[in-house]
């Protein structure tokens, strides 16, 4: 991308242009807002829904009816203080503000890891304090590799691992949807790839064994469960085996973080989605010598942590990403991205 480490044409005043989105490399929002309706998940970037000037739902927007909603945030990196974003707490609070501005509070929030930057007690404390302000029923976590530095995740487990298995994996059911939180950061493979490990894979196989194939499945983990860019460790070595256990299900969505940008992919019945960070952007795969915090002009940071919109619609037992806009009235016309 010539002369650009960020998307330069901003048609919607949200930091994303259409071309960038169509490349499936769009910078995404400070959080995702997800709706479950009849077993189908639809997700929207927070920035797309909330008017930043009034701190409430954009005028004229009508949200589709949903059985329930939840939000995903990721990669808060509390404790990070380098030039890419010296105020990671402020941007996390902004993401929480957007969640709180939704007309219906999400039933729960999924945080897909890297809560902290250096796995320090004070960093976890700060995150906990900030998350207490989120208006939601519960917050579910999975760890990122930054949360397990030094101690292979002992502190993380003490804080967030109650009622989990192994290194912190677990599942739960909500409104007929089966959610599975996986841990792929405690064991690592050459090149920084994530690893689930045999114990967790065996657990996963048993966990889904008794479920009907029509049960909607949502998997969340930190490192992507598909090969985004293995050269930078953006993938999970043994994810294929995990996904093989989910092939028989009609509707599977996989939510990840780690790469600090939104990418989407559909493979058979499985839809993959990675979320942005609430802290700082990273380069698009292969556009820099290595992954890492990317400094952008200060006035552009929040817009680069901007917006994405993804809708998932079930067709014939498979999921497909379609460019379905939010329902808009005459007053608010939203471009179908």
């Amino acid at each position, binding site marked *: 991308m010539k002369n650009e480490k960020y998307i330069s044409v901003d048609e919607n005043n949200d930091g994303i242009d259409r071309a960038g989105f169509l490349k499936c490399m769009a910078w995404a929002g400070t959080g995702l807002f997800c709706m479950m309706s009849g077993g189908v998940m639809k997700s929207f970037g927070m920035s797309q829904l909330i008017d930043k000037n009034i701190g409430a739902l954009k005028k004229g927007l009508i949200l589709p009816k949903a059985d329930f909603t939840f939000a995903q945030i990721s990669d808060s990196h509390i404790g990070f203080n380098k030039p890419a974003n010296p105020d990671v707490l402020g941007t996390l609070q902004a993401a929480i503000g957007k969640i709180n501005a939704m007309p219906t509070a999400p039933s729960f929030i999924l945080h897909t890891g890297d809560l902290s930057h250096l796995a320090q007690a004070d960093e976890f404390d700060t995150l906990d304090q900030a998350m207490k302000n989120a208006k939601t029923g519960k917050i579910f976590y999975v760890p990122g590799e930054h949360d397990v530095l030094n101690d292979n995740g002992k502190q993380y487990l003490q804080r967030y691992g109650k009622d989990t298995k192994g290194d912190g994996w677990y599942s739960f059911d909500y409104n007929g949807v089966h959610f599975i939180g996986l841990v792929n950061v405690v064991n690592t493979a050459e*090149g920084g790839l994530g690893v689930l490990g045999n114990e967790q894979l065996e657990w996963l196989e048993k966990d889904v064994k008794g479920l009907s194939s029509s049960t909607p499945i949502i998997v969340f983990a930190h490192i992507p469960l598909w090969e985004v860019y293995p050269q930078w460790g953006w993938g999970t070595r043994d994810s294929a085996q995990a996904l093989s256990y989910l092939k028989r299900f009609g509707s599977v969505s996989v939510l990840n973080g780690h790469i600090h940008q939104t990418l989407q992919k559909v493979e058979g019945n499985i839809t993959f989605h990675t979320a942005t960070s609430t802290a700082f952007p990273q380069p698009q795969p292969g556009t*820099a010598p290595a992954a890492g915090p990317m400094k952008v002009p200060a006035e552009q940071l929040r817009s680069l942590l901007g917006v994405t919109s993804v809708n998932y619609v079930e067709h014939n037992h498979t999921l497909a990403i379609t460019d379905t806009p939010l329902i808009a009235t005459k007053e608010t016309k939203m471009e179908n991205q």
Partner: protein
Amino acid sequence: MQVSRKYGVLIAMAIVVIAGIAAVPSPRKDYKNLKVLPKDISTKDLSRIMIDEFEDGLGVSCGFCHAEEKDSHKLDYASDEKPEKEIARLMMKMTLDVNEKYFQVTHPLIGDSVLSITCMTCHKGQPRPRNPE
């Protein structure tokens, strides 16, 4: 009256000192194999060096230098099994030497912001520095 004022000042000073000590991150006691980095380094400083200097500076993850435990894929941080770990030690010593000899940095420490030369100076996000163009 003067005596009680003196006691008051002493008590205030003691509180400041105790609070200061409490604010310093406590060193982790169980590091088994630190040879270049200070043995009493705090977990925060050690983690910051690992992330800022090595992960970001070389574009690698922990497993680049640290070997896995024998019975699992978990990392054995104390192990010297991987040669990259010893190379990292040599590189840290070289970096400290260059800063001290050529940039007059007294008592240089890896991760210290006063260093003129860091891992990033040459590596620029690569495991092995590229030849200068």
